[in-house]
């Protein structure tokens, strides 16, 4: 196993996970996961289906307040903070399947985070700027059901970025998209990262993960089995076995 997985660069530690675990009934979906993420980093979190990636995301986002271990976000213990309190502190996540507010128009979807958690005034121009960032301004007054799959993914990202996140967890934002569409979303994530957002990408599309990540962490059966530079991690026998020897 590689070292503690210190990030490239030596920026401020944004997120520190210590011994994070989660049980459902008797089944340990996640156990003893340590992870450190530094400001501005692009981290890929990979693993086979059911390896605990989504469980980790939900623990971090505050969906499972009863998890084991602890998270510190920008030096603050998250404890039992509810999801919205974490969102307001700059911890944003997207959902695996886009979950727009179906009864609200595209721009109203963006207004929700702006009104409740944004650190700027929730103006029309600001909402519009968020939509322009994902190239949805032209559809501001449509309903989500009128959008295509990739547009829904972009709306999902826009809603997360409207929080002005310090850390964004993109949970399989590219599943089921075409080659060109994956490139669109990747470009968006790169742009966000350049603007200073730390990003954890959870992804099955390996091309996207390897292109995007500066560092890879691998979960297998709820445990972290590798954490380090992508090329080294992918060459590790344990990782190969997890992916090929299933």
């Amino acid at each position, binding site marked *: 196993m590689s070292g503690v997985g210190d990030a490239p660069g030596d920026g401020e530690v944004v997120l520190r996970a210590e011994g994070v675990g989660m049980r459902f009934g008797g089944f340990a979906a996640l156990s003893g996961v340590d992870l450190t993420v530094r400001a501005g980093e692009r981290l890929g979190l990979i693993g086979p289906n059911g390896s605990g990636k989504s469980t980790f995301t939900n623990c971090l*986002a505050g969906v499972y307040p009863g998890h084991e271990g602890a998270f510190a976000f920008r030096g603050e213990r998250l404890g039992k903070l*509810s999801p919205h309190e974490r*969102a307001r502190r700059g911890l*944003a996540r997207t*959902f695996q399947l886009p*979950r727009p507010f179906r009864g609200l128009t595209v721009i109203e979807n963006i*207004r*929700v985070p702006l009104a409740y958690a*944004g650190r700027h005034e929730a103006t029309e121009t600001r909402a519009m700027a968020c939509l322009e960032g994902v190239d949805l301004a032209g559809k501001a007054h449509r309903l989500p059901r009128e959008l295509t799959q990739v547009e829904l993914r972009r709306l999902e990202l826009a809603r997360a970025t409207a929080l002005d996140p310090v850390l964004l967890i993109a949970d399989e934002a590219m599943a089921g998209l075409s080659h060109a569409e994956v490139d669109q979303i990747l470009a968006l994530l790169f742009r966000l990262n350049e603007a200073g957002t730390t990003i954890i990408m959870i992804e099955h599309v390996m091309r996207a993960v390897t292109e995007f990540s500066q560092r890879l962490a691998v979960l297998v059966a709820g445990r972290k089995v590798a954490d380090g530079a992508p090329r080294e991690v992918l060459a590790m026998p344990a990782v190969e076995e997890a992916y090929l020897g299933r």
Partner: protein
Amino acid sequence: MSGATLPAAAPLAAPRRMGHGAFWLASALAALALVAALRALGSEYAYFAATFVLQYVVLATAWNILGGYAGYVNFGAAAFFAAGAYTTVAVGKAFGLPLLPCIAAAALVGGALGLGTGVLTLRLRGAYFAIATLCLSVVLQTLVVNWDFVGGSRGAYVVRPREVPWPFDSYGGFLCAVMVGLAAGAVAIARTVEKSRLGLGLAALRDDEAAAEAAGVPTLRLKLVATTISGAMMAVAGAPLPYLGSYIEPNSAFGLAYGVNAIAMPLIGGTSSWAGPLVGAVLLASLQQAATVTISSAANLLIVGVVLVVFVCAAPHGIVGLFRGQR
């Protein structure tokens, strides 16, 4: 929460929309005009019919704040309504207070009841909330039936005061004017909630609570605010009831008619805006008021049931939705 949210509404407003102040003013003017028109008519039956219809406007509007905006179905509207009515009886009997302070007391009782129900059940899925409100209705009715101070199962008589407040010609006229005021206030409150940050948050959690939380919406707190406002307003709707009929007993005060109407009216009118419950209540309550004169009260309620089922199947966005072109 709600107090702090209101200022944020202004920058959110679309350019052409009427502001909150203007809407409140318009509601007040409409209420004055209605009172003046009824006063000109001057018939006791007109007062009674108008009061009957307007109590449903308040009830349906109140129900819709939780049921329509937040998507939590309250089957126990009758419980809140009756809680308001019995607050009037109890407070009136205990302290000898007239109607207006009783209405304020009813708002407190209904709000507390709504908050309590919310605290107990709102962490659960929507269906559980609906069932819990049904149970609340049974529990409250049992308490009232066993509470001799307010008449128990025999019911209680409420005597209308002899002296009628100034500009009104009869107590019926005064009661009707109070109801007009309550209805205008209820509609204005609903519209303010709907167009404010609170309304936006409720609409978000109605569609997807987990996504709303992830977007920073404090869903539990918002739901509690909504149950409290809704509960308080439903109790207010029931507070004048004892004076309307001069007699009140548990079976009719907790009657299913209030529960079904409170749901049917917003759904028929349309749940997504303040206009829906208003339209639905005026239509359905007028229909019932007209029908009680001509056909039996059972057949009359059957109409409500059938209209409800037909509307939820055929026009899921209600009458207002039909006019807006199904968005």
